[in-house]
């Protein structure tokens, strides 16, 4: 396992360092505006990105053939998905509080809570990541989002005894289960096969189309909307369960995360590129994807005022929707040209930028019309990127990234 870990860190230390520095800086800036320490469990997920990139590149296809037991491999991936991210997050928190904001009191209780929260969040991600890619592309992917949102919800209730109980009785078993299932992650991905291909094909390819009639986009979009609805329902449950008082910045942040839901089509781009569709037509399909996923989620928030009056107006929700979807079209566009890595890298940058400015510029303070215009402008940029990417020969190359979807 030592050789595996050393090799992994040698290949990915640059990305770890980059994430560490950016997060430290962002956390430090954020905390300087806060009177008390924060517990950002959400960001622990960023430290799992190197592993997901590595898996997307099919490394497990090589490591499983080495003279190392599956148990050891499972432990290796558990260390990388849970232990390393938690340690790095604690370092980030330490740097952000002790170095940049020494005035902030960060008690041992806070420290333990952050560590526990990070462990549970990372464990939950690891657990969900251990499901087969086909499952990840569907329902489990949505649970992943829910876990992510749940961790945001917990962030707002550090000193709530219910949060402690939730972490201990729900989170820790999930983490333990992740440890047990880590071996499955290896087996599930060992063959590095696009397991989701039949589903993706079913969703992407229209059931019936003749040579003269262009393929109908309805099944394609219906699948995305269905995905969004599942996410929305789970999200609503999480919000109610956590008694979380939503704020619009966080909602926008969640919307950004939902763009992951459009990732499966990136892996299948080569397939849909063969359909009798013009480049413009195809670019439009891809462009509308984030909107299809986001619409049901934001619908939940549109309905929320009925239960919690005064939280949001439908116009505000619509402007948030268009803004978040417009932002989401950028990583989508990059992914077409640069593959999954390009998509994830640009999404990470966007998210970090968002985290950096969100507390300083509450989205609520942006007039709805500005949200609309900005969202539409981003959409145009996204469309341009998408079209450029589709015209580029690279988008025709077979990508094994599908396993990540």
């Amino acid at each position, binding site marked *: 396992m030592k050789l595996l870990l050393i090799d992994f860190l040698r*290949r990915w230390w640059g990305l770890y360092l980059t994430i560490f520095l950016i997060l430290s800086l962002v956390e430090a800036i954020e905390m300087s505006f806060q009177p008390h320490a924060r517990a950002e469990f959400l960001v622990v997920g960023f430290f799992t990105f190197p592993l997901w990139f590595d898996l997307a590149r*099919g490394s497990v296809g090589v490591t499983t053939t080495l*003279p*190392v037991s599956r148990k050891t491999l499972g432990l290796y991936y558990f260390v990388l998905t849970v232990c390393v991210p938690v340690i790095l997050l604690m370092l980030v928190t330490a740097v952000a509080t002790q170095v940049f904001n020494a005035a902030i009191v960060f008690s041992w209780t806070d420290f333990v809570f952050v560590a526990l929260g990070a462990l549970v969040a990372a464990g939950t991600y690891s657990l969900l990541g251990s499901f087969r890619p086909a499952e990840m592309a569907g329902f489990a992917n949505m649970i992943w989002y829910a876990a992510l949102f749940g961790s945001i919800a917990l962030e707002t209730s550090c000193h709530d005894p219910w949060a402690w109980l939730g972490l201990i009785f729900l989170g820790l078993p999930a983490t333990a289960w992740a440890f047990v299932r880590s071996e499955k992650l290896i*087996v599930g991905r060992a*063959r590095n096969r696009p397991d989701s291909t039949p589903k993706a094909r079913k969703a992407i390819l229209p059931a019936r189309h003749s040579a003269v009639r262009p393929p109908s986009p309805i099944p394609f979009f219906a699948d995305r909307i269905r995905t969004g609805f599942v996410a929305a329902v789970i999200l609503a449950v999480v919000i109610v369960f956590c008694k979380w008082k939503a704020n619009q910045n966080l909602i926008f942040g969640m919307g950004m995360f939902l763009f992951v839901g459009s990732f499966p089509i990136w892996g299948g781009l080569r397939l849909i590129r063969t359909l009798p569709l013009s480049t413009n037509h195809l670019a439009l399909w891809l462009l509308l994807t984030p909107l299809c996923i986001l619409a049901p989620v934001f619908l939940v928030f549109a309905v929320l005022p009925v239960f919690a009056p005064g939280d949001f107006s439908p116009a505000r929700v619509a402007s948030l929707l268009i803004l978040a979807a417009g932002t989401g079209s950028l990583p989508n566009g990059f992914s077409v040209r640069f593959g999954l890595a390009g998509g994830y890298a640009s999404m990470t940058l966007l998210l970090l930028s968002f985290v950096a400015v969100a507390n300083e510029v509450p989205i609520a303070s942006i007039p709805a019309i500005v949200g609309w215009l900005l969202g539409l402008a981003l959409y145009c940029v996204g469309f341009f990127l998408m079209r450029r990417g589709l015209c580029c020969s690279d988008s025709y190359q077979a990508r*094994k990234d599908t396993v990540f979807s």
Partner: protein
Amino acid sequence: MNQNAVEIRALEKHFPRFKLGPLDLTVPQGVIYGLIGPNGAGKTTTLDLIFGLGDPDAGAIKVLGLDHRRDEVAVKRQAAYASPDASFRAWGTGRKLIRFVSGFYPAWDEAYCEKLLAELHVNPDEKITALSSGSRVKLGVIIALAWHPKVVVLDEPAAGLDAISKQQVFAELLAAVQDEERTVIVSSHALTDLERFADHIGMIKNGQLLLEGPTCRIVERFKLLDFVSEDGAAFVSADGVFIQRHERNQWQAMVDTERHTMESLASRGARQISATPMTLEDIFVALGKD
């Protein structure tokens, strides 16, 4: 030292729409064993299970007398696996990948590895993403051979290779078997090459072993017969007779000579029988048809 390289007994693996087995397979030591079958027959699943990539639902697999699950690491210390599905992109270049993998095998032969790289025209310093798909397959084969494993399991080593590269890869496998008594298990659709290089053939169809044995015996066993008969029904239903085509009373059929002789066919009303030898590919096509 007469133990078999791989022994599979009553192996079963269930998928929602496919069932592999019960499968019995025996791979003797020191041979090139070709595993053939139509797409989706279960070849890759079998190879994956041999190598512990997935758990069988029933049955036992022994590699060099070792249980593939209980002695997992010991098996992997003696057996190499190369699959076209493996992606090496995470390591950037072939050189880095080789450096990583070589650390796990004390028997890694640097000189042999360099020789293979040169012979198969793979530039290890080039980015993996810049390599052609054929070169990536060759890189996988090189990594599997470079540490002199006793058993080499290769899934589709000819996928994406041009005719020259295919010959080179199979020649290397042959050299490995002849010089070092290694066992090579190859799943491939390059049937012409397999017929030339493989000592044993196992054919799988719909998750079941259809036939197994030395290549020359299999090729000799099946003959393409042209004959005249007024009553075709006697042959259509016969076991071991695979009708290829017929026009009025002219018939052409692949016949399993272990079950039917010319005389037995003549006794069923066949006249003017002429026999033609078949290639492995012909046999595969005839048996693979539903």
